[in-house]
């Protein structure tokens, strides 16, 4: 064990990485500081379960609903995989939001952590985008009308609203193109943004260290 670790360490610097990432000094903090890790864990769970769901899910108006019924009722543990993805999504929005509140109320966004905050905002918006695009995919009544309403909101933007609406829906109407592009955004574009931004976010957290709980006179 030790031999393997030192063999790897000599060639990769693994122990240094381990020390920098996991043995860095942290101030005495409380449970609110675990929300970032909780969000990260949920993001990874969403990735794993989401990848698994694409094995059976078919993003077309004819098949989407039936394929999800198949996952829920026929595939072994399909209910579990989809259940984790469904509830994990809700929980992730919650943890990311609470994480933002923690950072906000402790003033942890201040110098030198402004860039961490900005990447965090990107992560929050991306998470909401994932929730919004994922909501359409079951292609049931609730999904359809929620997306009809949600995309219509974009149409109210002055001047470019009508254009943005068509970009979002892939046309003027909610159609198979909307489902297809929401699927693409949900499984490729947004996760790519999410995980690369998580990389930057984590780098900054490790580089700058985490803030301590502000004292009464600060």
């Amino acid at each position: 064990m030790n031999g393997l670790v030192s063999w790897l360490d000599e060639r990769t610097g693994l122990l240094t990485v381990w020390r920098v990432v996991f043995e860095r000094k942290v101030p005495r903090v409380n449970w609110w500081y675990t929300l970032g890790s909780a969000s990260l864990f949920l993001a990874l769970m969403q990735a794993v379960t989401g990848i698994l769901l694409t094995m059976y899910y078919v993003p077309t108006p004819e098949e989407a609903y039936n394929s999800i019924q198949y996952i829920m009722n026929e595939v072994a543990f399909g209910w579990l995989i989809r259940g984790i993805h469904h509830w994990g999504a809700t929980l992730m929005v919650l943890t990311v939001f609470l994480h933002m509140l923690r950072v906000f109320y402790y003033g942890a966004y201040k110098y030198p952590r402004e860039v961490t905050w900005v990447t965090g905002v990107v992560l929050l918006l991306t998470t909401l985008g994932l929730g919004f695009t994922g909501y359409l995919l079951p292609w049931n009544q609730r999904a359809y009308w929620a997306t009809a309403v949600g995309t219509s909101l974009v149409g109210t933007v002055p001047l470019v609203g009508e254009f943005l609406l068509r970009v979002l829906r892939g046309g003027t109407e909610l159609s198979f193109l909307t489902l297809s592009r929401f699927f693409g955004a949900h499984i490729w574009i947004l996760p790519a943004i999410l995980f690369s931004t998580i990389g930057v976010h984590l780098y900054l957290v490790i580089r700058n260290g985490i803030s301590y709980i502000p004292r009464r006179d600060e």
Partner: protein
Amino acid sequence: MLRLALMHISRICYNPAIFADLRCGTKLRFTMDWRSDYYIGRREFVASVAGILGALITLLVGLPIIGYLIAPALRASGVAGWVSLVPLSMLQPGIPTPCSFSRLKQTGWKRMQMTRTVYALLRDSGDVTVLSDICTHLSCKVRWSPERSVFVCPCHDGIFDREGAVLSGPPPRPLDRFDTKVENGQLFIYVED
């Protein structure tokens, strides 16, 4: 039982050989032997609890994933049975005649009409052989070539004669045959799936 478990845990906790591996950083380089090194510290305790919980969660999700992935392989897609193929009078003696039939098959959440082609060979003696059109090499579809009077597989040049025997190429065995029966001049074959 609990006492036994606790004894076991304490033996692990005081076993330097195990925790020498877990310790890294300063202690790894600081070779002096302290008695306290052999006790489990808070840091090590938290690390192993986190490790055990992580392993449990991985197992809890990981095992169902295996079932999830192999699920479709475990269900039958069709039902075996006799299928009406063609009236015997339609067959030309001595020449394999392509005959198509459709069956409802369950694929995932859909029941679909799947059409297959087989070759029926009526011999001069009056008995019938029905050959599968699936090459025994790597399951491409063979085609009867009237000019050459052989079955040709387009993928790797497998050649079969009119009885399905291999003439040349990579196929390891003759074309598969169906069980047949004739009722009121109508040819039936037994389809397994």
